[in-house]
């Protein structure tokens, strides 16, 4: 339909700035020419993370632009959502408690420049991930002068 109008992402500038997906390729088993071959899940295993957290389901997504009229500076980054809902209100103080060490990691701690680097990160920790499609605005070429363009005599029903 209007596929060419969709903003092609990542933009060239961002692609140059972001680290190349080379480390991601190194992680996959196929890259045998790498000096050290890292199997999926290995980093997680040696890092001392409890085993139950190495078999998590995570969602890789790119946060949508805020609905309020802010600029688009923070759009285009990728995040990992740990689908962590183990929270409760502490009965003593009313504070929020959580039993999940990853509860606040995805939101605040991890940001990736591309879906690939987020995937590589999830792979080396052995997480079972799903990548959600990113929705980008449909850009329509408009010009201010169009508003004053002569479109022929007004139609009878419009008058």
């Amino acid at each position, binding site marked *: 339909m209007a596929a060419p109008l969709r903003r092609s992402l990542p933009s060239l500038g961002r692609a140059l700035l972001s680290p190349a997906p080379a480390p991601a390729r190194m992680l996959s088993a196929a890259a045998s020419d790498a000096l050290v071959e890292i199997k999926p899940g290995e980093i997680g295993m040696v890092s001392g993370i409890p085993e139950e957290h190495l078999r998590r389901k995570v969602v890789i997504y790119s946060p949508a632009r805020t*609905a*309020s009229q802010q600029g688009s500076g923070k759009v285009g980054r990728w995040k990992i959502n740990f*689908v962590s809902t*183990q*929270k*409760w209100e502490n009965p003593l103080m009313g504070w*929020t408690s959580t039993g999940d060490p990853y509860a606040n990691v995805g939101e605040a701690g991890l940001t990736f420049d591309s879906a690939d680097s987020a995937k590589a990160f999830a792979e080396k920790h052995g997480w079972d991930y*799903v990548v*959600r499609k990113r929705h980008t*605005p449909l850009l329509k070429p408009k010009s201010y002068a169009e508003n004053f363009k002569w479109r022929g005599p007004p139609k009878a029903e419009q008058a």
Partner: protein
Amino acid sequence: MCLVEVEKSPKPVASCAMPALPGMKIKTNTPVAKKAREGVMEFLLMNHPLDCPICDQGGECDLQDQSMAFGADRGRFTEMKRSVVDKNLGPLVKTVMTRCIQCTRCVRFATEVAGVQDLGMLGRGSGEEIGTYVEKLMSSELSGNVIDICPVGALTSKPFAFKARNWELKGTETIDVTDAVGSNIRVDSRGPEVMRIVPRLNEDINEEWISDKTRFCYDGLKRQRLNDPMIRGPDGRFKAVTWRDALAVVAEVLQQVKPEEITGVAGKLSDAESMMALKDFVNKMGSDKVLCEGNGPNPPADLRSNYLMNTSIARLEKADAILLVGTQPRVEAAIVNARIRKTVRATQAKVAYIGPPTDFNYDHEHLGTGPQTLVEIAEGRHSFCSTLQSSKNPVIIAGAGLFEREDQDALFSTIESVAKKFNVVRPDWNGLNVLLLHAAQAAALDLGLVANPTESIKSAKFLYLMGADDVSLDKVPDDAFVVYQGHHGDKAVYRANVILPSSAFSEKEGTYENTEGCTQWTIPAVPTVGDARDDWKIIRALSEVAGAQLPYDSLSGVRDRISMVAPNLVHVDEREPCTISSEVKPPVKQQVSSTPFKTVVENFYMTDAITRASKIMAQCSATLLKK
């Protein structure tokens, strides 16, 4: 803020209004441009109060961002700031009109997208203000979007006012289930509580808008919730029990009834996983009576094209003649209505409507109230035929309310003959649509929950209601055992013998298919309430206690099973159109009755268990639906 310096231009140029020409030398970061922007910012802030610390927009405010980026480090304004009287726009939108910077985006939104001429600009110069002229509530089902549209804190959410700051909130990108559109939303939560719901962009479905029901139903998630499994004692009162006891009681009753007396009813908010589990469980118990509410006695589930919006929501913009049959899109699917309005505004598409008198926010022709008008069109005797004949991309949208009618088959075959006559279905264009009402409907028809509700409920001795509150329970035999599994203590709980608490859409991972056949997932944002469990897990546990264990025990297991029944339900974020045409259908013998079409949604703000429990929605129906 868009001021730039152009070489050989005596003054800074507004880049947003100036077309770039070859040979132009544009400088964006020079002292002249900076000074010019500072000047504009100073004018904007002249009459803007310095109340960011107590403003709900603070932290996600465009003016705040802009003044951080482009503003001066001091103000020179020592006079009195202007003050403007706050307007009452109803129970949803809070106004602090002194903060308004007169950008008029809300006026443009109201007139162009929402289609209500409520807001406008009054006065001139420093007396200029946004208002409704005579005091009037904003009577649009999309009015909440002006909160997002406002670049400052002049229009903010009334229910959210002073409840939380936006940087404390955790956003979870999920979808809405209060109607069949499946609008993309972000659920903002703080700790274990949903604080607000905001839209997120999806050009194919909801663009960047959501309806007021979607945006403000969230307080219903905190009220009337079912916490614990409960059993009704001999005295008629519910007693909280453990899961083990509750499931044992249900399983025991299940052993005593005959297989054909078991009926399962899925509710309108059910996800595909739970409906799959319910269907497998009831089938395993030896009954085939599983249905989803709202699908009528004889749902057209054989071909997907018979119950989906085949044109797709986005492609409605290509239509040039639209025939609405027995559907009131403004209340049934406000976002689809906004899309139709966009089409009408952009291309002057002709809209014709058959059904009871109702509100429209665009030009339309009311052809009639009953099926006779439809028959007249099918026979080519109606004046609207010439419009359909001359249109390139005609669209017919039938309401899902027609599923409940006796003469449903005849009606749909008449609609199909209209489609055939005016070339509505072609290889490059499918204009034959059904607009569904509930989030669960499409997936239920895909999975084959198609039993006849009246017959199966009348003969049921064991009725399993999975969040079904709107099925008529008058016909349930007095000695029937009713299990209600759901998240809200709504209508059906009054008849239930056992209550099994389950999680709401904001607390579970579920698959939903929207009216155009696009499969989407919800992602849990907050923990479940009390001892509630996910719907499919409850049925899985019950199946084991009842001795008919279902062959899956993980979400991926259920999804594998779904992929066997309806593979389109595992292709997430994809719209899978139907490939088989409806021409293979057998001929219909039935006659069209003369009963006029009925209004399906009486109250836009209260359609399901969540919205009926919501205080904000109750306020809306009390103030905004008053005629």
